[in-house]
């Protein structure tokens, strides 16, 4: 019993930050049909900025209550600035190009931003553990759990709810859904698709950065730590369905819990199991488990 509870909680924690990151990725794919490899940059930069901010707060002995706003502001800042730069200067020029070239261009952008991290933040790892330390631990079924990790699950739930609400109940959400479904018709109906693209991309970027910023206190923030995550979030998006938000949720849950289970039971399978599932889903249902229906065009 304790074993399963632990696996579940570990899986949920991992799934939470996977979800926040993959949500951005899947929304960008759904609206713009771009698989954005540079999403990893949002994650990395979000984490580094938050780490830097937390370090600054700690070094100057400022109030601990500033941690949460610092993290959120870092995420928004990174999302807006990086998202705008990438969309405006790279992506906008490429919308009509071959989809492979767009992916490769985002790969190039990712590499450049990875190097910029080393130039900006240096090569040493950052360990901004103070927020996690502040919240301490509680005992759940005989195991000590970091309270901070539990708040991560809470954050993911809030994000999920806000997105669902935003997409289904607000005007903007309906516009987005329309563009996801068919871009040409949306343009024909008078929707300013360019503006939608910019807003979507920046929104997705903020989500990616939020994932990184919020997770920073629980991990070692060092150059290259986004690389593994990029390919894992691809797995999540593929499993759940590219462009589907409930898909991102289910995908991250599957990946998170599978991985937690593997680490506890059969550590040798940890990396293998996630990608095996990704391959299987692609073979059986290439559009993903929850893909939005796509009419075939001749």
């Amino acid at each position, binding site marked *: 019993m304790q074993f399963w509870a632990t696996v579940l909680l570990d899986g949920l924690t991992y799934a939470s930050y996977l979800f926040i990151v993959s949500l951005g990725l899947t929304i960008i794919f759904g609206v713009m049909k771009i698989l954005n490899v540079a999403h990893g940059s949002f994650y990395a930069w979000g984490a580094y900025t938050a780490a830097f901010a937390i370090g600054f707060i700690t070094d100057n002995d400022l109030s601990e209550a500033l941690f949460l706003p610092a993290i959120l502001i870092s995420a928004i800042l990174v999302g807006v600035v990086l998202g705008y730069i990438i969309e405006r200067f790279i992506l906008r020029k490429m919308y009509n190009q071959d989809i*492979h*070239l767009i992916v490769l*261009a985002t790969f*190039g*952008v990712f590499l*450049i931003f990875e190097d910029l991290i080393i130039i900006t933040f240096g090569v040493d790892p950052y360990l901004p553990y103070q927020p996690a330390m502040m919240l301490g631990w509680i005992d759940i079924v005989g195991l000590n759990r970091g309270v901070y990790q539990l708040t991560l699950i809470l954050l993911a739930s809030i994000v999920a709810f806000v997105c669902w609400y935003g997409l289904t109940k607000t005007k903007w959400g309906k516009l987005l859904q329309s563009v996801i479904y068919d871009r040409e018709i949306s343009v024909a109906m008078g929707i300013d698709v360019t503006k939608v693209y910019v807003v979507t991309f920046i929104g997705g970027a903020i989500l990616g950065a939020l994932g990184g910023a919020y997770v920073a206190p629980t991990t070692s923030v060092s150059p290259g730590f986004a690389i593994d995550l990029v390919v894992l979030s691809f797995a999540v998006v593929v499993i759940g369905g590219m462009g589907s938000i409930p898909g991102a949720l289910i995908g991250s849950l599957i990946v998170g819990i599978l991985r937690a289970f593997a680490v506890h039971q059969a550590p040798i399978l940890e990396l293998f*199991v996630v*990608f095996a599932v*990704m391959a299987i889903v692609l073979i059986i249902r290439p559009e993903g488990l929850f893909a939005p229906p796509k009419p075939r065009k001749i």
Partner: protein
Amino acid sequence: MFTGIFKDTSVRILITFMIVLCILSSFVLPDWMQNNFMYGLSRGLAILGLMLLWRTNLVSFGHALYYGFGAYAVALCQKYFGITDILLRFAIAVIAAGILGFCLGFILRKYREIFFAMLSLAFSMVLYGLLAKAEFLGSTDGMSISPSTLFGMELTRQYLFYLITFFVICAAISIQAYLRSTLGHLTTAIQDNEIRVEYLGYSVQKAIHIKYVMSACLAGGAGGLMAASLGQVDPDSMVNWNVSGELVFITIMSGWGNILAPFIGAIIFEFIRTYAFEWAPQAWAAIVGGTLLTIIFFFPGGIWSVIEKVFNYGKKKDVK
């Protein structure tokens, strides 16, 4: 398919180029440059395979699967069977990768565009996951490969170089012959309109399957040769997704216009890498990213299109 292949201009240029390289390397080139040419030519084989797929409008983001599979096949054969003969090693790498490609090809040939890319990525990461965690395969340390032999005699690096150029020539000639054949011409046809090709009576899936196996063989051979030249294999430099990304990068950089393009691109890549590590080791990733973006925006045909313009070559021919 092979008739008149030696009259083909591209083949002739390729053979001349290789002979010049061999002469240079015997007399003039310092060891480290020779190394770079060896790595470039080996990797060029994998790029040739990717080029073949790209002409069919398929981009594989997981070709490091075959590259690494070939390399590890060589390493494992040495560990368990003591095989060090270079001909055997090359054959093993090519055949092992080919078999894997043949099996996976049944699944992959049904997919296009982003799904093809993602599925190939998934398969390569599955292998990565296995290799990185398995202790008996060296996990992230990888395995060592002792220098190769030829028919029982020790093989000096000079002769390894000659052999690599020989393998490259064989592979390139085969591919060129294929491209000139009917099935080869289907490559561009499939890219244009698959349904029409089906109506013409050719099975698109079978054609893609064949191309896929060929590109897998090439990538496997490349991995095997790299393993033999370097002496070391490990999952992070042979199977991880950024290796696949690197291979695709070189493919784009080289251009798809000619069988010589992949080798030129791969060699240039090695030299850029050597100098980048010496002068600005921190900036390597940015250099790759920047070059990639420059190529995509300004030279979509890759380096080969620049060479074509400079030498005024092939301007009347169709894509060959």
